């Protein structure tokens, strides 16, 4: 995870990116690709599709970096949103749903692989213990919201959980994460 990270002030990195300087994108990739890829693969559940989504996400970042406003939030927040939205869009696209019907087995293998790979990273980051302690029903709700792009209302409808309960679980999960994640 930390093998090729470049230490650079976020401000300088943003300047490089806004100038469409290739060095900036190389640093961005080195520093954040693992985090982005992890989220993407968790959403699309296929390495092949994840690579495409990753490429699309970087193209979007390249094209829209002018519009990124440092005062509105951290660079990571922004690029993570771009990657997550690109992946969720892909997940919901007809094309994707059609190909996945035939590749269900492949997808399962990939998921097992990538989950196996990610656990090492989790340990490295010292977060796994915290996440493990998250109650399954809280983790489920967070995963649906974050990785499936469901709204709280959709989670309530699809899983037959009262909306109030969904909200309480989200709150509890976030309160819990807040307490342990700095």
């Amino acid at each position, binding site marked *: *995870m930390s093998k090729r990270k470049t230490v650079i002030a976020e401000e300088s990195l943003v300047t490089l990116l806004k100038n*469409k300087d*290739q060095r900036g*994108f*190389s640093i961005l*990739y*080195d520093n954040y*690709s*693992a*985090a982005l*890829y*992890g*989220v993407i*693969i*968790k959403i699309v559940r296929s*390495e092949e599709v*994840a*690579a495409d989504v*990753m*490429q699309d996400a*970087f*193209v979007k970042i*390249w*094209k829209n970096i002018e519009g990124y406003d440092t005062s509105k*939030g951290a660079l*990571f*927040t922004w690029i*993570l*949103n771009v990657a*997550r*939205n690109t992946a969720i869009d892909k997940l919901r696209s007809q094309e994707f749903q059609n190909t996945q019907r035939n590749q269900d087995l492949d997808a399962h293998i990939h998921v097992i692989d*990538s989950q196996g*790979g*990610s656990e090492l*990273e*989790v340990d490295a*980051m010292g*977060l*796994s213990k915290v*996440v493990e302690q998250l109650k399954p029903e809280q983790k489920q709700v*967070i995963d649906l*919201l*974050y990785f499936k792009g469901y*709204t*709280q209302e959709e989670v309530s409808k699809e899983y037959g959980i009262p909306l109030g309960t*969904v*909200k309480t679980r*989200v*709150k509890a999960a*976030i309160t819990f*994460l*807040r307490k342990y*994640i700095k």
Partner: protein
Amino acid sequence: MNIQAYIESGILESYVLGHTNANETVEVENLAKQYPLIEEEINAIRHSLEMYASQFACQPPVELKERVLHVLDDLATEDAEATSNIIFVPSSNNSFRYAAVWVLLAMSLVANVVLFYRWQTSSDQVLALESEKQQLAATKANYQQQLALVEHPSTEKIILQGQTIAPQAKAVVYWNTQTQEVLLSTLHLPQPSATQQYQLWAIVEGKPIDAGLIDTLDSPSLMKSFQQAMAFAISLEPKGGSSTATGPKGQIYVMGFVKHI
């Protein structure tokens, strides 16, 4: 504003996850500016979710970096080409968009020209119709006036018969003895030469009085009014006619007497 209730409503989580609509987003952002507690809550939710997401981090295949950077490199090249040729050659990256813009612009121009032309033509046509309408209205008024004159009980119909020079010639004078109007009609006369013109005369107390020049043989026309007359006659005169003082210079073509005299 109950900030706690607002925080509890779950809208901040929806906001961070990008599930709020445009109005809600603006609302949340405004409130965040107003209430530090809300801003803090948003940051905490965001941070927690990001950290949660980060725990799934995993290294992408090594070759993916090269592939992604290569695509960005292509974009940069296209961008540079587009910038250097910005005036005439659209970048291939945005070529569709540029092409669409040009096509739409061209279509719009053509449409404008066509519409302007049509508008102008229509406008001309409206003017022509308007003028035609006015002419028709005038003609109608004219005919009505003539009909009223012809049908008037005090109107005499005097048939002017062809004289020796043109025995077949004929004309009709309608003379309203009350209003004194004179209408000349039904002109069957040989076409005059370009230097000549027919002139109507009223014979008053034995003397020919100028009753007006005849501009056309094709339609009836009102002539000068007369209080009294014993006969009407038409002579062929040099262009511009002759005065009462000199009397008709040319030959009389048709003549008719008023009956009641």
